[in-house]
C-alpha cells in the first residue's frame, strides 16, 4: 500500500477510481506467466507471483504518465509500465514499485495511408490495428505473441519477431516517430516528432544520431527506461484481398479463403538442405510466411486441440519442415509466385504435402493473415516459453538448433519438459531472407514444481551453451545478473548500458529488473 499522502498525490493526477493500492488488485497484478521459473532462478519459491506492487495506476494521457513519473522521482518509488501485460517482463522487481497499466491509453491516433504508417497508444492490440488498416489495403507487423498483444509494446519495449517477418520485418525496425516519457519525467519525442514547428510522425531518427539506438536493441528495455506513450509504426501492403470473413462457430470457423493465397509444407529432410532451401526460397522474395519449426510444432499450428493434433501423422513424420505461405494481390502476381514455387520445388527436390497428403482447415489461412499461429504453442501442456532467441544467419540458427538437441533431450528424459523430439524450434526469415532468428519453444507444466525447475535449469544451461559456443545472444539476457555475466563476453556492453541507465534514469525509478541498474553488480 502507499502512504496516504502519496496515494492522494496519485489520485489528484488520475482520479480516485484509477488508482488502487488494495490487497486484491495489487496481488492480482503480481501474477504472470513464467514468473514461477523466474522466481526459481532467483532462489525464491517457484510460484507465479512476483513482488507485489504498491499500487496499480491507470493513466489516460501522456501528461498523466509524465506527472506520475515525476511523482515517482519525488517519492523514490519505482514504476513498471505494462500494456496487455503478457509475460514476466511486466512484473515489478521490487515491492517499492507502482504498476502503470496503460489500458486507458487505447487510441489509434492516426492512420496515415499516404505515408504508410499508423500511430497508436499502448493499449491497441495488433488485431485492432490490422482491421482498421486493412480497410486501406494495408497491414501491420504483429509479433509471435499474437494479435491480442500490444503493438506498441512489441515495437518499443519487447522483442519483435513475427510469422510474417519475411514481408513485415521486425518490430524494432518498423519504428518511426515515438513519444517517450523518460524516467526523469521529460517527454522526449524522437525524430520529426521532436520538431518545434509542424512536428510529424514519419521519422524517428535524428537530427544527427538516432536516439532509437538508446530506446531499444534486439530486445527492448521492458519499462526499464521510461514509458512509451505513442509510437508510429510502418505499415505494409496487405498481402492479398483484404476481405476477411470467418463464418460458423468457434473454434473451427469457416474462413472464406482469399483467392490468391496458398500454403506449402515442405520437408527439407536435413539441416543442410533446410538452410539451402530457406535461403533460396527467400531470395525469390515471394513468401508472406516462411518458417521452419519442428514437426510437432507444425502439427500444433494446424490443430485446435491436443486431441486433434494426434491425427496429423503425415506431418508428424517430417524431418525438417518448412512452411511457406504465398499471397498475392493480383492473379498475375499469384501465378508468378506459384510458378516460382514450382520451379524451386523442382530445383530443390521438395514436395508440397498440402493438397496431397494434408489439407489444412480454412481457419489456418485466417490465422496466418491474423498472425495467430504462435498461440498454438500452448496446446500441448498449457505452458511454454522460448529458450534461445538469437538472430543472424540461417546457418547460425540451424547450428544452434542442432547443438541444442542433445541438451533439450537431456531434460526431456528427466521428464520435466514435454517431448517434442528435442527439435522444437521456430525459425523465421526477415526481410526476404536477409537474416533469420530462431527460438526454442519449450513446453512445460507450470503447475508442476519439478517441471518449473526443469525448464528453468534447461534455459540456464541453454544460455551457457550459447555463450560458450559463440552461438549469439538469446532473447532473455536481462537484469543485472545476466548482463554482468554476459557483458565481458560481448565487448563489455553492459558498462555502456549502465551508463545509459545512469544518465537517463539518475534516480533509478524505472524498474530495472528486466533491464539494468546503474549500480555495478546489483539492482537498485
Amino acid at each position, binding site marked *: 500500500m502507499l502512504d496516504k499522502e502519496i496515494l492522494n498525490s496519485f489520485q489528484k493526477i488520475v482520479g480516485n477510481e*484509477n488508482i*488502487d493500492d*488494495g*490487497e*486484491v*488488485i495489487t*496481488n*492480482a*497484478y503480481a*501474477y*504472470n*506467466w513464467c514468473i514461477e521459473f523466474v522466481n526459481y532462478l532467483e532462489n525464491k519459491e517457484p*510460484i*507465479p*507471483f512476483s513482488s507485489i506492487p504498491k499500487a*496499480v495506476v*491507470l493513466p489516460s494521457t501522456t501528461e498523466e504518465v509524465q506527472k506520475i513519473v515525476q511523482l515517482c522521482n519525488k517519492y523514490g518509488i519505482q514504476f513498471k509500465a505494462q500494456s*496487455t*501485460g*503478457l509475460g514476466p517482463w511486466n512484473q515489478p522487481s521490487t515491492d517499492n514499485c507502482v504498476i502503470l*497499466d496503460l*489500458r486507458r491509453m487505447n487510441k*489509434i491516433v492516426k492512420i496515415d495511408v499516404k505515408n504508410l504508417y499508423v500511430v497508436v497508444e499502448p493499449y491497441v492490440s495488433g*488485431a*485492432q*490495428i490490422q482491421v*482498421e488498416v486493412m480497410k486501406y489495403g494495408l497491414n501491420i507487423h504483429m509479433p509471435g505473441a*499474437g*494479435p*491480442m498483444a500490444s503493438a506498441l509494446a512489441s515495437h518499443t519495449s519487447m522483442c519483435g519477431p513475427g510469422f510474417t517477418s519475411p514481408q513485415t520485418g521486425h518490430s524494432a525496425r518498423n519504428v518511426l516517430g515515438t513519444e517517450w516519457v523518460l524516467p526523469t519525467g521529460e517527454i522526449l519525442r524522437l525524430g520529426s516528432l521532436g520538431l518545434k514547428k509542424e512536428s510529424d510522425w514519419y521519422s524517428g531518427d535524428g537530427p544527427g544520431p538516432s536516439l532509437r539506438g538508446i530506446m531499444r536493441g534486439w530486445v527492448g528495455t521492458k519499462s526499464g527506461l521510461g514509458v512509451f506513450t505513442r509510437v508510429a509504426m510502418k505499415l505494409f501492403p496487405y498481402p492479398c484481398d483484404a476481405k*476477411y470473413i*470467418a463464418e*460458423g*462457430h*468457434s*473454434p473451427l*470457423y469457416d474462413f472464406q479463403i482469399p483467392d490468391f493465397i496458398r500454403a506449402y509444407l515442405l520437408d527439407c529432410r536435413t539441416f543442410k538442405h533446410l538452410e539451402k532451401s530457406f535461403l533460396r526460397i527467400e531470395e525469390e522474395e515471394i513468401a508472406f510466411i516462411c518458417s521452419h519449426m519442428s514437426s510437432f510444432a507444425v502439427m500444433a499450428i494446424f490443430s*485446435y*486441440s*491436443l*486431441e*486433434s493434433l*494426434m491425427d496429423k501423422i503425415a506431418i508428424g513424420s517430417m524431418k525438417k519442415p518448412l512452411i511457406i505461405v504465398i499471397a498475392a494481390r493480383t492473379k498475375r502476381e499469384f501465378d508468378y509466385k506459384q510458378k516460382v514455387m514450382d520451379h524451386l520445388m523442382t530445383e530443390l527436390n521438395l514436395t508440397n504435402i498440402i493438397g496431397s497428403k494434408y489439407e489444412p482447415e480454412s481457419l489456418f489461412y*485466417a490465422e496466418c493473415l491474423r498472425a*495467430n499461429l504462435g*498461440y498454438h504453442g*500452448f496446446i*500441448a501442456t*498449457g*505452458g511454454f516459453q522460448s529458450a534461445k532467441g538469437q538472430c543472424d544467419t540461417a546457418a547460425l540458427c540451424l547450428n544452434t538448433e542442432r547443438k541444442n538437441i542433445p541438451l533439450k533431450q537431456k531434460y526431456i528424459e528427466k*521428464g*520435466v519438459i*514435454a*517431448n517434442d523430439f528435442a527439435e522444437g524450434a521456430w525459425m523465421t526469415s526477415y526481410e526476404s531472407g536477409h537474416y533469420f532468428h530462431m527460438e526454442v519453444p519449450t*513446453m*512445460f*507444466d*507450470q*503447475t508442476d514444481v519439478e*517441471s518449473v525447475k526443469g525448464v528453468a535449469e534447461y534455459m540456464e544451461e541453454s544460455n551457457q551453451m550459447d555463450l560458450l559456443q559463440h552461438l549469439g545472444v538469446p532473447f532473455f539476457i536481462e537484469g543485472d545478473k545476466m548482463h554482468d555475466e554476459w557483458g565481458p563476453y560481448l565487448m563489455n556492453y553492459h558498462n555502456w548500458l549502465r551508463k545509459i541507465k545512469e544518465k537517463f534514469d539518475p534516480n533509478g525509478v524505472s524498474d530495472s529488473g528486466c533491464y539494468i541498474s546503474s549500480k555495478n553488480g546489483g539492482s537498485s
Partner: protein
Amino acid sequence: MDEEEYQKMIKRCVRCSVCKWIPQVQIKSQKYASACPAIDIYNYHPYSGGGKIILALAYEMGRIKPTEELRDIVYKCTVCGNCAVACKYMNTLEPLEIMMKLREKLVGEGCGPMPQQQAYIEAIKKVNNPYNEPHQKRTDWIPNDLNLDPNAKLLYYVGCTSSYRRKEMAIAAGRIMNKAGVPFNILQNDEICCGSPILRTGDTNTYEEILNKNLNTIESKGIETVVFSCAGCYDTFKVDYPLTRKYDFEVKHTVELFDELIESGRLKLTNDVPISVTYHDPCHLGRNAERYEDWDGDVLPLMPLVSINIPPKPKRTGSKGIYDAPRKILKKIPGLKLKEMERIQEYAYCCGAGAGVKSAFPEMALETAKTRIEEAEDSGADIIVSACPFCSTNLQDGIKDKKSNLKYFDISELILMALGLEPEKLKRATEEVVYNNVR
C-alpha cells in the same frame, strides 16, 4: 466444476489477455474488438476472465482475504461467458466456471452475494420472484382472450421478468401459440422463479431448493415440453438443472418453437414489416445455452507432462447455442432487413444485466447496455431485437439513457406484426413511435 478440477485449473492461466477480446479472427474493427464489459468499464486486469482466475488462485493461496474489495470485483460480472468462448478457442480453461465456483466459496464465507442480490434472493424465497411483487399478481399479464389448455403437454414457463416487467413478451408468446393452434398451458400460481438470479450469485444451496421445487411441480403434471420466452430461465433449465438433477421433459426457447412452426407452415408470416433490425444474441440463449455433455473417457498419458483425453472431451465453445432459429425467423418476415452487429453469436457482447449486476451495480448494467446500443446503432439498423426479457429491460434502459433513436422489440413482437396482429407495446405506443419506426 468439481473441487479437484478447480484447484488444478486456477493455476493454469497464462495471462495472455485473450479473454478480453472476442476471438481474434472475428475482430472486424477496433471499436468492437472487446469481449468483457467488466474490464471495459473498470479497466483493472482482475475484472477480466483471466483476472478472476488469478483472484481464485490468490484466494486459495491465502494471499487475499474474503473482503468487500474482493467481493465487489468478483460480482461486477454478468457471467456472460464471453471470456470462456475466447479462451476456449484454443485453450481448455473455464474462466466462467472458475468464477462461479469462486462466488460459491465467497458465499460460503459469508462474503457474498451483494446486499442487493441478497435482498432479491429473500424476495424469491418469500414471494417467488426477485421483484418482491405479490405472488398473486404473477398471472396478471394474461389477457382475457388468451386460450390456455389445461390438458396440454406443452408448458409455457413465463418467468418472473416477463410476468411482472415485460408482460408484452408473455402476451406476444401466448398469442403466437394461439395463432399457430398450439395448445399450451402455464403453471399459473404454481410458477416460481427458475432460480437463475440465485444461481449466478453463487448461492447454490438456495438455488437447489428452487430447482427441486420446480422440477417436482413440472414432473407432477406430466409435461412433455417446456417452452421459455426468457433466455435466463431457458438456460437454467436446459444447462444448469441437469447438472444437479436430470429430468425427462424437453426444453425449448420460443424462438426454436416459432421457427419450427414457421417452417411447418403452421405460422404464416404474411404481413409486411418494412423495418431494418439488428439481432442481439442473449448470452443465455447463445453461448451459455450449450449443454454439458457427459464424458466417460480416459485421460491417457501420452508422455511426461502431456495427457490426452480419449475420446476427446467435449468442450463447450458456445458453438451449440441458439443462433440460427431467431435469424431464420427474422429473414422470413416480409419486408424486414436484418443487419448484423459485429459481435454476434457466441461472441456477442453482453447486454449488461445478468447475474445480479442490474441490481447490485446498476451503473455497470447501464454502461454496458449503452455500449451495446451504440453497436446496434452502428449496424445501421433502426430496431434492436432480442429474445430475452432481461436483455429487453436493460437495453431499453440503455436506449433511454443514451437518448438513442433506436427502438427495441422482442422477436415475438415482430412475429405478431408479421402475423397481422398488434403487439402490446404498439397499442400503448405514441403515434410518433408507431409511425416513425415501424410503419
